[in-house]
């Protein structure tokens, strides 16, 4: 496994006139890591990737790859490969010519190109399509061709800009798994941009969550899921997203709809907070908050209930046994460790 592909973003700013696209972005990526840049559209994740690729330059700050400052280097000098959302296959070249193009540009001897191209194509299972042109390929095949073009050169960084978003749902799930296997087997450092939190959760070793041009949290998917840093991240990650309701905190407890829930926080005193509980962490029954079932959505093996708790909406995911009916009244409870508390002013995590 190569120890190449270490990335450092140091104090990166990007402005377009008055508009600040990136606000002091800092992160490090370790060699061999699968790193996701996750965030809603317009949050700066794509800009970050483009700056890393050398397609855009930061307004301020430095980019290091393998310890070397590449901030002012052209894309062509960086030895990075990229899969574009649109794939950007060269329509006038065959699949084989597309894949061999980066090798030609790297001045690889002709005799070595053909085997390298075949090898890359085989890794993504398109070796039977080498003579076709992109226009004659299905969407999934085009995506694989773009992947092959990116891996053939064994670049030190492998950048992916929403590479699965143009595939249909079933193919997306399959490709996701293969992509992860491919990255593992090649031992490449991958940087993956997506707005789909599920993709980031399943693929990434670590991820950076972008909100409005800033990184709000960096961590493993488990960490980000278990301990979201802010209300925005809490609301962005998880499906259905975390329930976030205004509540009153007092001496270690939080009051929701008049009912007391224990929390892990110890601090004394009283304040307004936003309490977050994941839909899957809410339990039905027992001595809990009484609430009415407004709507039941059956999803097959699970069901999602919309509950009315004193005018606020709370969604609960339950297993598909003993699902209450619409109009029923249920009691809900949650374990202290499943209750997340956020400052309602700063929107940051308290506990």
């Amino acid at each position, binding site marked *: 496994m190569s120890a190449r592909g270490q990335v450092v973003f140091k*104090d990166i*700013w990007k*402005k*377009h*006139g008055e508009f600040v696209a990136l606000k*002091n972005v800092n992160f490090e990526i370790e060699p061999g890591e699968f790193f996701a840049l996750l965030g809603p559209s317009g949050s700066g994740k794509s800009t970050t990737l483009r700056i890393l690729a050398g397609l*855009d*330059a*930061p*307004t*301020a*700050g*430095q980019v290091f790859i393998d310890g070397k400052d590449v*901030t*002012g280097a*052209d894309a062509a000098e960086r030895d990075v490969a990229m899969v574009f959302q649109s794939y950007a296959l060269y329509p006038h070249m065959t699949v084989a010519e597309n894949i061999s193009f980066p090798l030609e540009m790297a001045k690889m001897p002709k005799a070595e190109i053909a085997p390298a191209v075949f090898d890359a194509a085989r890794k993504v299972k398109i070796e039977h399509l080498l003579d076709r042109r992109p226009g004659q390929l299905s969407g999934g095949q085009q995506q694989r061709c773009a992947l092959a073009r990116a891996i053939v050169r064994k670049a030190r960084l492998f950048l992916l800009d929403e590479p699965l978003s143009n595939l249909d749902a079933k193919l997306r799930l399959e490709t996701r798994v293969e992509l992860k296997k491919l990255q593992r087997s090649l031992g490449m450092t991958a940087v993956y941009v997506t707005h789909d939190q599920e993709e980031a959760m399943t693929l990434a070793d670590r991820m950076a969550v972008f909100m409005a041009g800033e990184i709000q949290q960096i961590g493993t998917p488990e960490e980000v899921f278990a301990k979201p840093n802010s209300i925005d991240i809490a609301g962005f990650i998880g499906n259905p997203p975390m329930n976030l309701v205004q509540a009153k905190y007092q001496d270690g407890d939080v009051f929701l709809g008049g009912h007391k829930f224990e929390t892990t926080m110890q601090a004394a005193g009283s304040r307004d907070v936003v309490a977050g509980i994941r839909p899957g962490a809410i339990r039905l029954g027992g001595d809990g908050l009484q609430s009415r079932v407004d709507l039941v959505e059956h999803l097959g093996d699970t069901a999602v209930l919309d509950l009315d708790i004193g005018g606020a909406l709370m969604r609960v995911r339950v297993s598909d046994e003993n699902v209450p009916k619409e109009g029923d009244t249920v009691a809900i409870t949650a374990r202290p460790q499943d209750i997340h508390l956020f400052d309602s002013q700063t929107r940051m995590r308290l506990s």
Partner: protein
Amino acid sequence: MASAGNTAATDVAGVAYSDFGHVLAQRERRFATLLLAPAFLALLATTTFPLLFLIYTSAYRMDLSMPFLNGFVGLENYKVLLSDDRFWHSLVVSLVYTISTVILQVIVGLALALFVMNMKRGQGWFRVIAILPVVLSPAVVGMIWRTFMLAPEFGIIDYLAISAGLGSKNWLGDPFLAMVSVVVIHTWQWTPFAFMVLLASLASLPEDIYEAARIDRASAWQRFRRITLPLLRPAIVMVIIMRTMVALTAFAAIFTVTGGGPGTATEILNLYAYRKSFTELSIGYGSALAVALLIVTVIISAILFAIRRGK
């Protein structure tokens, strides 16, 4: 990109960074300059330089036939021009020629486009035949009309006139008929242009608004007045602008058919400038006429563009 860079270096946490956006932009600019420079220089040499030189020569007396009289005359050529009846006459001929041909092209072209649009079969014939006139050299078109169409007792038009009992006419020898002839020839050659542009524009109008109008009980005429015409307006204005510019500087067809004659009956300003410069060899005065033509062109196009921008 560049403007963002200038401010960023100071206001980011007080730390001075070099802005690499600037560097990338500079590289891109250099590449653009490299690509543009040859064409830009060629255009400078073949358009801008002649324009400046033209203005320069228009301030000189420059007679190739009498070089001993050559010299700087300042605005003399323009003074002469303003009291030159032949100039004013050619300007009027230019305007008559331009206005009549443009109006005819638009009306006939629009009528044909509407007609063909509603045809169920045979559209292809019109589309192919419309291409022929517009790709031909106006000089060849002029030659064909001058001879095979209009030559007395030989041309088909004259034959038709005789057959219709009007008798043989000297189509290109009579001042009025000559003017009509050159207008008809220009209209013949360029109406297919208006036709093709307007047909393409018509074909791009959505079908469903007509169905909606039909349901609203609009008559065919109302549909044309209230829907087709307003939607077609940008295309019509574009056709008018383009055809006006071309008609003002038309040369080959008139040169071939009448040479500006009989006398100066069909001598548009463009042709007058040419004749003065290259037939009478008064380059200086010819230059002044060409400048006048440029001014007229600019004024008319300014008016037309104002109309286009306005309602």
